[in-house]
């Protein structure tokens, strides 16, 4: 019987079996400032980083996005960043830290530099590592202890995953974005509904996505509970990778191209589960609750508790969100708009938002910010004049990082504020204690910013 893409990649990276678990080789280990305890563990054991040249660090979660010429105001953040610098220096790990022209969100940096590429395994101490699967890589989000394991051994002990296919046929309508597709998939699978699975996204609508759109889609595999999400590499993928700074060249590229074109699920491979949907039926989507699966089309209403499968949970969510159920989504007024995060901070996302904003102004009373995913994204956007479009509209144009997606740095929303956010999690307190997050696409966020409430971007 044939094999799925994830199974093939798994087998290609299988080094050994140890006491019931598979030992996979990790080709690329991405590191950020939140796992200092992993380096601490190495030090206690007296071990080096086994493959510093396959380990790449950046600073994203805890960096300021305002003026970077001044010293950091948060002493804990400063100490954490400094520790990453020292750990990278000690172990010879390349670091694209603050001040580097490649600094950025780890899941933006990997693909953008060409370090992430088809056919490899990726590990990173972050649940959104599935993002890298968009290029046809097998990418695992891991905890700190496993970061230590990969630093020490360049391998990861893992349990086999079940195989789930998400088939998206048809084509996304105009004004409907990869984010809307991702939110719809999460609603279909359920929050945690793909736990234990590797998700392969397939079908005409997926093949039609740009690499950036695919990154958005794979990114939110985490919200369905999947550790791994991926898309078979094709011409679109290869064209994207080829022009990256650290992509293979010459003979290595020719070999890579040959190998990568063979990376696909066999026709007779069996998935453990298949979920199908039609892209034509997807609409601009807005979350109303406190899990990413609690979403409705923008033309819809916030469900009442009795309309939800889990009434108690819906009631808790509504209570936190300051809603009762039955409200029209377009009647929800906003205090803040955030465009950024590993889901939606790439150049196409910024273009999409700027396109909606062009010539318009942010509504009175709405605080709006854009946080590009990386320094290269920021520079490119500035070359295209997007920063001016955002600034003229009344957005703050900031420095790259995770920022208000998780509010670790100074970018924190206030209690009771309602936010249209292009990030991936609307959990309680995620963007600030008591802050109320609605997840949307960059286009929908921009439209909401100018009207002061949610609106169908197709009608703006």
């Amino acid at each position, binding site marked *: 019987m044939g094999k799925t893409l994830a199974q093939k990649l798994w087998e290609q990276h299988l*080094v*050994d079996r140890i*006491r*019931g*678990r598979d*030992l996979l080789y990790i*080709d690329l280990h991405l590191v950020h400032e*939140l796992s200092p305890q992993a380096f*601490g563990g190495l030090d206690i054991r007296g071990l080096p980083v086994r493959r510093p*040249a396959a380990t*790449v660090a950046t600073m994203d*979660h*805890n960096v300021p996005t305002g003026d970077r010429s001044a010293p950091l105001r*948060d002493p804990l953040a400063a*100490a954490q960043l400094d520790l990453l610098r020292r750990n990278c*220096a000690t172990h*010879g*790990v*390349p*670091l694209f*830290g603050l*001040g*580097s*022209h*490649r*600094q950025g969100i780890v899941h933006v940096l990997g693909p953008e530099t060409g370090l*992430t*590429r088809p*056919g*490899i395994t990726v590990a990173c101490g972050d*649940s959104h590592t599935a993002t890298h699967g968009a290029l046809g890589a097998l990418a695992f*989000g*891991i*905890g*700190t*202890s*496993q970061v230590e*394991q990969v630093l*020490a*051994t360049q*391998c990861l*002990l893992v*349990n086999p995953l079940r195989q789930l296919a998400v088939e998206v046929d048809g084509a996304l309508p105009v004004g409907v974005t990869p984010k809307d597709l991702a939110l719809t998939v999460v609603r279909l699978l359920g*929050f*945690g509904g793909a*736990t234990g699975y590797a998700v392969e996204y397939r079908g005409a609508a997926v093949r039609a996505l740009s690499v950036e759109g695919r990154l958005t889609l794979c990114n939110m595999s985490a919200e369905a*509970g999947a550790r791994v999400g991926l898309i078979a590499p094709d011409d679109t993928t290869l064209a994207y990778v080829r022009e990256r700074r*650290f992509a*293979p060249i010459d*003979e*290595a590229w020719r*070999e890579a191209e040959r190998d990568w074109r063979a990376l696909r699920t066999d026709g007779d491979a069996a998935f453990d589960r298949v979920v199908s949907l039609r892209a034509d039926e997807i609409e601009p989507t807005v979350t109303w609750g406190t899990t990413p699966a609690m979403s409705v089309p923008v033309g819809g209403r916030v469900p009442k508790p009795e309309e939800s499968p*889990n009434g108690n*949970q819906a009631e808790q969510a509504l209570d936190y969100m300051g809603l009762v159920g039955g409200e029209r989504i377009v009647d929800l007024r906003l205090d803040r708009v955030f465009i950024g995060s590993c889901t939606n901070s790439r150049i196409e996302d910024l273009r999409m938002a700027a396109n909606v904003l062009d010539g318009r102004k942010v509504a009175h009373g709405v605080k709006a910010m854009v946080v590009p995913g990386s320094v290269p994204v920021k520079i490119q956007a500035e070359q295209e004049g997007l920063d001016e479009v955002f600034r003229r509209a009344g957005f703050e144009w900031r420095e790259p990082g995770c920022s208000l997606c998780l*509010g670790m740095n100074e970018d924190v929303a206030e209690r009771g504020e309602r936010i249209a956010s292009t990030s991936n*999690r609307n*959990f*309680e*307190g995620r963007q600030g*204690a008591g802050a109320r997050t609605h997840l949307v696409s960059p286009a929908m966020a921009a439209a909401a910013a100018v009207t002061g409430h949610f609106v169908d971007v197709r009608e703006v």
Partner: protein
Amino acid sequence: MEPVLWVRGRMMPLVRDDVDTDQIMPKQFLSRVERDGFGEFVFHEWRRDPEFVFNDPRFSGARILVAGSNFGSGSSREHAVWGLQQYGFDAVVAPSFSDIFTGNCAQAGVVPAVVPPELCRSLQAAAERDPDSGVELDLTTMRVMWTGGSGTFHLDDQVREVLLHGLDDVALVLGQLDVITQYERARPAWMPHLDVSVVPGAAVGPDAGTTP
């Protein structure tokens, strides 16, 4: 890590599904570079509510948290498991857990025991009825026993193996270095490789390159 053969203690019921790690360990504590001292920050926001179960003195000193489905979802932060453990929990019982949370539990020596939803509700009811009554999870027999009943819990085979034998995964993998080295010799030439000494723009130390 010490082997975990069984866990015994009083229960604390947390009747809620989809508890994510942002709730268990809010982001403001992830700036800490230590591995200990997280116990006091567990459920920091929810503990502001006097009605929250962590503020109920009847359950103080509980060693087993009986939670809802999809517990530990969201962020991969292992700090969530450290916090629960350092607060005093040796096990979490729930109908389901997120993958990464389960793995993090195994690494820390916390038991992520999976039980059917009905059994979970029975345990929560038992704790409510008699907060002083205990429960025992036996990892050898995979039985859960409490005053008034018993049942079976489930652990992923490999998680169970790690806990029962107190395995240190790093040491385990280091024992296979020759196999790893052999694997490395046959890798294709197109694999990512970024040597700090030859690649411009990749710098170590505070003076990371600023020119493209």
